[in-house]
């Protein structure tokens, strides 16, 4: 038996819809667990979610703690917080590591759990690893020492084109949220078996101070961006909301395609936030990413640089996007995009 406690993934689900980041977290957790010689456990909270535990096991979980109660029908910070804390506290020892998605849910919940346990939390990681750490700082003698098998929570340090490795070995659980699209999911195996442990949570009156009146989801557009094989994105170079016609038109030339955008186009009110790619939007990894009128700022880049192929159209030859795209074309997107559509279609005999 390993001297370390297990790793826990908090499943990201809304109204029974298990979010893709969960499989990615399980993929990352399984790798970490193997390095530590421990197991991957998952917590899933919700109402009428009996279909989910099995999916978690097929995707890498060895044991799943399930809190399936009507109070958890809608995501609410306080009830989910209570459920997660109850499960974690029921374990004989604090888990070594807890991972959550860096989604609107995970970023709402994880900080509260970390503050409750007075432990560290690294937000928005793009890589996770296990390694040793020697703390030499003298300012706090209690912290000095060599620590083995700590969580390396690695994240870009924004506006600074750096990556930083954050450590917090002094206290368990060591916590991190991971960005959607950044980790490689576990290879689904429907023959995998594991343990399902139902749990019951007693809520307090104060947990219901925050009332969820309703949850409205426009599932399609959002899932499209994360699952799309081809993404055509538009930026400030589109000049206005009607510019997205050109983007949509080019996207329509491809199967499994979706429309993305830069933050500047979102901030300008040209397209809803759910289309935003980047640091404060989504991380995507399609096979082909076409950027129309996007300059390629670091905050945009971190959300799409894992795309297998990047094609940039920009009228400014010195735009930073040409530093990391695979193909570029210098010109007016309004002229180039229709030509691209035509040429792609021609290159593939019907």
């Amino acid at each position, binding site marked *: 038996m390993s001297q370390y406690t297990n790793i826990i993934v908090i499943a990201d689900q809304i109204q029974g819809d298990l979010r893709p980041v969960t499989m990615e977290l399980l993929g990352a957790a399984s790798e970490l667990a193997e390095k530590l010689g421990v197991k991957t456990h998952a917590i899933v909270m919700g109402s009428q979610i009996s279909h989910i535990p099995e999916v978690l096991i097929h995707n890498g979980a060895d044991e799943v703690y399930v809190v399936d109660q009507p109070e958890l029908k809608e995501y609410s910070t306080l009830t989910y917080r209570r459920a997660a804390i109850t499960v974690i506290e029921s374990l004989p020892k604090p888990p070594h590591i807890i991972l959550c998605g860096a989604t609107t849910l995970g970023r709402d919940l994880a900080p509260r759990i970390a503050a409750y346990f007075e432990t560290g939390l690294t937000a928005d990681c793009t890589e996770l690893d296990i390694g040793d750490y020697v703390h030499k700082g003298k300012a706090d003698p209690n912290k000095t020492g060599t620590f083995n098998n700590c969580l390396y929570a690695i994240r870009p340090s924004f*506006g600074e084109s750096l990556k930083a490795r954050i450590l917090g070995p002094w206290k368990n659980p060591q916590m991190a949220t991971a960005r959607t699209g950044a980790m490689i999911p576990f290879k689904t195996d429907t023959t995998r078996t594991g343990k399902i442990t139902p749990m019951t949570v007693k809520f307090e009156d104060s947990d219901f101070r925050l009332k969820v009146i309703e949850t409205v989801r*426009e599932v399609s557009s959002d899932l499209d961006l994360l699952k799309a094989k081809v993404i055509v994105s538009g930026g400030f170079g589109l000049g206005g909301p009607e510019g997205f016609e050109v983007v949509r038109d080019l996207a329509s030339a491809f199967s499994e395609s979706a429309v993305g955008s830069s933050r500047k186009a979102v901030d300008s009110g040209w397209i809803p936030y759910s289309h935003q790619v980047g640091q404060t939007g989504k991380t995507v990894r399609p096979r082909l990413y076409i950027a129309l009128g996007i300059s390629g700022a670091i905050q945009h880049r971190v959300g799409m640089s894992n795309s297998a192929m990047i094609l940039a159209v920009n009228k400014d030859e010195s735009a930073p996007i040409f530093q990391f795209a695979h*193909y570029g074309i210098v010109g007016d997107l309004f002229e180039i995009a229709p030509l691209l559509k035509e040429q792609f279609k021609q290159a593939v005999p019907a």
Partner: protein
Amino acid sequence: MSDGLRMAVLIKQVPDTSSATGVNPDGTVDRARAKKMINPFDKFALQKAIEVRNARGGEIFVISMGPPPAIAVLHEALEYGADKGYLLGDRRLAASDTLATAYALYKAVLYLKDIDIIFTGLQTTDGDTAQTGPQIAERMGVPQISYCETMEIEGKTVKATRIIDGGVQRLEVEMPVLITVANSAVKLEHKRFANVYKTKQALRDKDALADKIFTVDLDEVEADATRVGLVGSPTVVGKTWKIGEKGGSCKVFKGAAPKHEVELLVDEISKDERGVMEFVL
């Protein structure tokens, strides 16, 4: 005004990476030399608070934790229309991570007493964790509305919508509450502070600021110094390195005849081993 709300807005001073000053050629920031500004997300939080105060009455206290020069962001916030500014400044706060920062700011909020709404930005451009707000809420034992897009206030009830992945939630909560304001919460036409110039005039008289901006230390807010700074922070930055530059590998097509360039480009792509042509309809 008796039913006026007491609101705290947390604002941080961050390096201005859009200005060349203090940004090294390799993109890293020289924090000492960099120009400073209010964290852009915190301006939206302040704008939201000003909207509420203008509609409902009340008082806005801005709080910033940072070194003495951070007082500049409090000045700026007062120019925009905040009522009072508090700098939580103490050498013992240096090197605080988010957990420690949230503890210190929570103490500062308690110090102001009976705050109905705490507004924070969604995230900072330098720390960039989006977790300070929720961690303050946890310490206060109050609910939070993160990624808040719209809000209406009736008495002490806040009705709000928040962004979730792929949709929105409509929420209702009694004050006190902490709200992290999404950048889409403030309409573009309101993103410029309309009243800036008017108040700027009023504040030109420096004496007018003397009873509006205060510096407090850990002892005054009754914070435990062992829970902040290096000692109180459960995390450290172990190592940093540059993000790998793929630069130079981009094949760029340009020329006077776009149609020809596009033909050449698509021809290259169709031969590329990464194989994307299978998706062309």
